[in-house]
């Protein structure tokens, strides 16, 4: 009972300090919410149907293959592109180049009957482009890749995507295609990953910063004062951990509800599954923050190490763009990051509509990581006499 009271006192203290910290509130809630809003606008998540722009792209189909038609169809469907298939359809390459130079088109896709080689048997794909904007280029290539995947079953002569007997590789790709291209059940299909991505990145930032308060408290002699009372070292660590979890869960839910408000993500309906993922992710990220604090010797060095690791993990783990768009070997590396598993959980629940059973592995990985990382941090704290 008394121990619980002590813990509560410690957590309340963290809350009081958090409220007093001018930078904490914006960094935890406002900046990520702002970024989610901005990136949502860039990707046209708010109202995909009436989006004014889209990237101006032309598709010219010289092929009579059904696969080629599927690809063009898929490109046309994608809200991120503004596909002109009308008057430009017959245009010659030179006319297309001119349009690109004049900035009336950003990319042109030319499909022609090709030799029977490679995976894209029968269709030859050429892309003319002006990569003036990195986000546009990125988006365009992602969309194109998906469009090609849409045509893949036809190309491979396997029109029914539900058939058994295909390689697992293909089934994975085709599954992506189904969700992305049709995407009828999920409103704002990529909102889940935009919101989840920024949320997890800022979760890591705020929890690491909260862990680095250990250095300030130690320097001021606050632990000496606390430990000379009835508080134990484990209570100090546990207090920090509980506060980190609490802050993380509140932060994630706030950002997800922002996503619901802005892009119509269904958070309320998915809460029973989303909450466990948020709890496990907060635990893992808090543990990460503690580990950083335990292997560094000052708040400054902890913050620089954390910033570096968080950016790398976010890039590799799929917080910025889907891991499935990355090269195979990076996809393998991604799996050792907390960000990857957190994103798996978020997109699993919000996008792929996974059931409780399907998110279990990801919950297990996150909780296991939290425990293992926390144990490593505790061991380091003990060795470095962090609380003396």
């Amino acid at each position, binding site marked *: 009972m008394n121990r619980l009271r002590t813990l509560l006192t410690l957590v309340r203290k963290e809350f*009081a300090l958090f409220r007093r910290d001018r930078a904490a509130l914006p960094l935890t809630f406002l900046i990520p919410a702002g970024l989610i809003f901005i990136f949502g606008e860039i990707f046209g998540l708010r109202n995909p149907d009436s989006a004014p722009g889209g990237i101006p792209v032309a598709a010219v189909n010289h092929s009579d293959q059904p696969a080629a038609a599927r690809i063009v169809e898929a490109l046309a469907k994608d809200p991120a592109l503004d596909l002109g298939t009308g008057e430009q359809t017959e245009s010659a390459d030179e006319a297309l180049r001119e349009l690109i130079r004049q900035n009336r088109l950003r990319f042109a896709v030319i499909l022609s009957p090709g030799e029977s080689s490679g995976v894209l048997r029968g269709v030859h794909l050429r892309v003319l482009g002006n990569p003036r904007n990195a986000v546009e280029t990125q988006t365009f290539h992602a969309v194109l890749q998906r469009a090609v995947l849409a045509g893949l079953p036809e190309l491979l002569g396997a029109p029914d995507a539900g058939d058994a007997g295909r390689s697992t590789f293909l089934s994975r790709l085709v599954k992506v295609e189904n969700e992305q291209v049709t995407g009828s059940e999920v409103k704002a299909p990529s909102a889940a990953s935009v919101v989840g991505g920024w949320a997890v990145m800022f979760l890591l930032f705020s929890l690491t910063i909260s862990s680095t308060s250990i250095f300030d408290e130690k320097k001021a002699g606050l632990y*000496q004062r606390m430990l000379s009372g009835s508080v134990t070292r484990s209570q100090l660590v546990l207090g920090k951990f509980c506060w980190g979890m609490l802050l993380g869960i509140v932060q994630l839910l706030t950002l997800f509800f922002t996503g619901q408000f802005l892009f119509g993500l269904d958070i309320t309906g998915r809460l029973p599954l989303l909450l466990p993922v948020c709890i496990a992710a907060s635990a893992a990220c808090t543990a990460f923050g503690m580990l950083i604090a335990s292997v560094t010797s000052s708040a400054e060095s902890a913050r620089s190490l954390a910033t570096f690791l968080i950016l790398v993990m976010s890039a590799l783990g799929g917080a910025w763009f889907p891991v499935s768009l990355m090269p195979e070997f990076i996809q393998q590396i991604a799996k050792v990051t907390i960000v990857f598993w957190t994103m798996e959980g978020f997109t699993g629940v919000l996008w792929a509509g996974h059931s409780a059973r399907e998110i279990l592995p990801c919950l297990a990985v996150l909780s296991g990581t939290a425990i293992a990382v926390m144990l490593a941090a505790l061991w380091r704290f003990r060795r470095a006499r962090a609380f003396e």
Partner: protein
Amino acid sequence: MLSLKAVTKKYGGFTAVDGITLDIGRGEFFGLLGPNGAGKSTLISLIAGLHTPDSGSVSVGDAPPGAKHRNACHRPGLVPQSIALYEELTAEQNLRFFGELQGLYGTKLRYRVGEVLEAVQLTSRRNDRLNTFSGGMQRRLNLAAALLHQPELLLCDEPTAGVDPQARNAIFDMLESLNRGGTTIIYSTHYMEEAARLCSRIGIMHHGRLLAGGTVAELLTRLPFDEQISFPVTPATAALAAQLAGLGKVISEPEQYHFLPSAGSRLSTFFTLTESHGLPPQLFTLQRSTLEALFLHLTGRTLRE
């Protein structure tokens, strides 16, 4: 109250506290005097139970060595050398937080917070954040936070660093009144004057060792006696002054005698004489540098070099 037996504490290969044996009785005001790096803070941490000694034993009160007291008032109150308070929180929030950690809740907590704020004269600032306080006010609150649970033993690690003379006197008065109320106090400082004014007993620390310990008078008997001693002119001291003439030179002023001992005489002789006249040691003002000289004598270096 407190018993240290051959206590040693090492940081890596460096010995910060080196085989200190010390007994401090209930109600004592014990001064730990030593230069930077002498090991005062380390010794205080050992007494507060923040470190465990590498060898030897520390026991506080009647608990077995190394054990933590469950009852709050038996746990020592620690005034760390640094301002161990949250800058962003108000005086009251700080005190409430540390009070709760000492097991105080509800009305008892509110009452104690009010009491210690009053004691350090910060009641009017209770709702101000610490980072709006002056250095001296922060020091006072730093002391107040250690008093919340009414500890029987108070460990003060340089509680007056950076405090102006007036505030320093306020702290002294407060500590003296606590001591009169029965609190045992251990007080570390660099300043001879502070130790001489406050402490009933002084330990001189250097390089992790206790070089000498005792009352100011006891310590001074160890010194070759060549300093000036002043005492007031009263009927009781007139006889002493007459006797002292044989030991050195006595200058009499209307209100004060000044005694300049001749070379080779010892301070102990002087104190034997004063005792035989039934005169308390407080009557005699030793020249300021006397303890300073003792330190120089013991260590071969000045205290703040």
